[in-house]
């Protein structure tokens, strides 16, 4: 097995971990404020498409990243209006949004190129720069949550929204802002996926990475650093899978297709304590009811 852990495999692991890490960081923000955003996968898809279209339109992948961030923000506004302002069921809304995103991105992508010609590839951003972005965002999210009063209010909105309300903060505004911010990062994550080494968009390009990010947030007990570490673990499995697919082994390669998801499942089993869960996660806040 020692030949598996080559430098190339490790580089691939980091490459595959980057979008998942970014999405997980976004979800940490949303969930800490009490919003369970199952629309994460959908927002990533919209971000990925925006990143692709933004890059094909401008020729600059950095503007593609910006488009992804904007698309994510827009998704965040829609989801915040539904989940936080209108207090629709968060689980049902998130699911519905992701289902919508799968169809809508496919549709918009089909419109974006002429049938018969292959969709154009886009120039890619260097891996190192994307890693730097992840590290910067990780530091910012950690600082926000652990070292600022904004972060305290945000976490309190997820643990004791009644207390936050009594202190004179608007729970709806706090949660709405966290939802928008979290989805903005998820949109950026999608754009990083296509504007990175991949360099193209395909139908359902995220392939469940948003769901993996959701699982990682639980695994990480809502801590940003651990979420990124979890993403690296996922990236490593994914990289091994790609590496082993290319080599002739007696093991069927489909096992490695399933491996990243199986490892995520096992990671969920390792986490035994429940105490870190934000107490009011997925519970809509109605003043005077809690």
């Amino acid at each position, binding site marked *: 097995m020692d030949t598996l852990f080559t430098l190339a495999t490790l580089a691939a692991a980091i490459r595959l971990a980057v979008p998942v890490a970014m999405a997980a960081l976004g979800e940490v923000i949303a969930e800490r404020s009490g919003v369970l955003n199952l629309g994460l996968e959908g927002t990533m898809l919209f971000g990925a498409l925006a990143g692709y279209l933004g890059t094909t339109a401008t020729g600059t992948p950095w503007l593609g990243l910006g488009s992804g961030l904007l698309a994510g923000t827009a998704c965040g506004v829609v989801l915040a209006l539904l989940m936080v302002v209108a207090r*629709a069921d968060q689980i049902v*809304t998130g699911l519905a949004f992701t289902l919508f995103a799968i169809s809508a991105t496919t549709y918009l992508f089909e419109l974006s190129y002429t049938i018969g010609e292959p969709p154009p590839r886009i120039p890619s951003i260097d891996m190192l720069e994307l890693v730097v972005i992840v590290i910067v965002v990780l530091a910012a999210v950690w600082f926000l949550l652990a070292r600022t009063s904004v972060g305290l209010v945000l976490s309190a909105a997820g643990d004791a929204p009644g207390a936050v309300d009594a202190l004179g903060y608007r729970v709806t505004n706090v949660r709405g802002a966290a939802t928008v911010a979290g989805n903005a990062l998820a949109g950026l994550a999608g754009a990083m996926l296509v504007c990175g080494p991949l360099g193209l968009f395909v139908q359902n390009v995220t392939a*469940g990475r948003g*769901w993996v990010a959701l699982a990682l947030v*639980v695994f990480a007990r809502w801590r940003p650093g651990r979420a990124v570490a979890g993403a690296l673990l996922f990236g490593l499995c994914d990289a091994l899978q790609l590496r082993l697919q290319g080599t002739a082994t007696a093991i069927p390669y489909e096992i490695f297709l399933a491996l990243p998801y199986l490892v995520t499942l096992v990671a969920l089993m390792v986490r035994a304590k429940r105490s870190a869960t934000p107490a009011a996660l997925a519970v809509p806040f109605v003043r005077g009811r809690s």
Partner: protein
Amino acid sequence: MAVTDREAGVRGPDRLVGRLLGGRDGRSRAARVAVPVLAVLGALVVGGVLMALEGVAPLSAYGEVVSGVLGRTRGLADTAVVATPLILLALGITVAYRARVFTIGAEGQYVTGALAGTALATVGPLSGLPGPLLVIVALLAAVLAGAALAALTGWLQDRFGASVVITSLLLNYVAAAALAWAVRVGIRDPGSFTPQSRAVGAAGLPTLPGTGLHLGFLFALIAVPVLAVVLRRTRFGLRVEVLGANPDVLAVNEARPAAVRLAVLIVAGSLAGFAGFVEVAGVTDRLTPAFATGYGFTAIIVALLGRLRPLGVLVAALLLAGLSVGFDEAERAFIIPSSTVGVIQALIVVFFVAGEALSRRKGR
């Protein structure tokens, strides 16, 4: 994650899931019907605008959709055939979501059921059984396989506190990998150049005389009233409602919430597995890598749109199936991207969710 427990515990019994997602919630019957109807109309209008932007006259396209379903002898039968797996899958989702057990694993359980049934019917010692017996045994295997996969997610939540939402979704990818392996190696038809299973042959479902429908549609039709009675008139049905409303109440009344959750998941998984082999035996005849077409996800839309009621599920499934079949026809006459119907279906559920939240907010 244990979201469901805590959430329901806070909400209290005055917000039964039946009221949450379509029961007596203080709104008039007209209001309860209006939201889904308006959601469908709104989605059709947006779909029309999209088609108009592409230079297709929406009314003539929709005319083609309608005549594609009602204007052909095959149209209605095709609709019923497409609706069959949707009905079975959505009924399972209905039971689960009523209990606020939000599984997204129907797709994986559907694939696993199809895989188990096909494996049993095409290879191995039992594949020589006479036709009707083989169908029954294969369906049984499909039910068990789907139920086992669903039960696994229930166990993971009970034992490790891992949310069913996430584990069921992750297992979909595992099931997809299993399907890919099975048709490439495991139960591959050795005489075929491309990866696919043998035809199920004698285990195929008979066609209902004079209709062009396979027997599976009848199963789905029977399942609707059966499930309605189970939910409304049995102890299990009551427990499903109470689990959805407040698991603590359930615990006081001598039933362990985890056990009821497991039972709910097993019912959902059984129906999904059943649907999987019904689709093989009634429609595709063999398994290919392209077998999983996302019915398990569309069925979530069907269940929500049907307001988590069996009869509503039937109506919603026929509606969405009709849209698919109709658009297939319309695409022959007009240049419409094949994903248009998916957008319209997804818009229906988005509008429905938003409308539900808004109308309940006003009613407060």
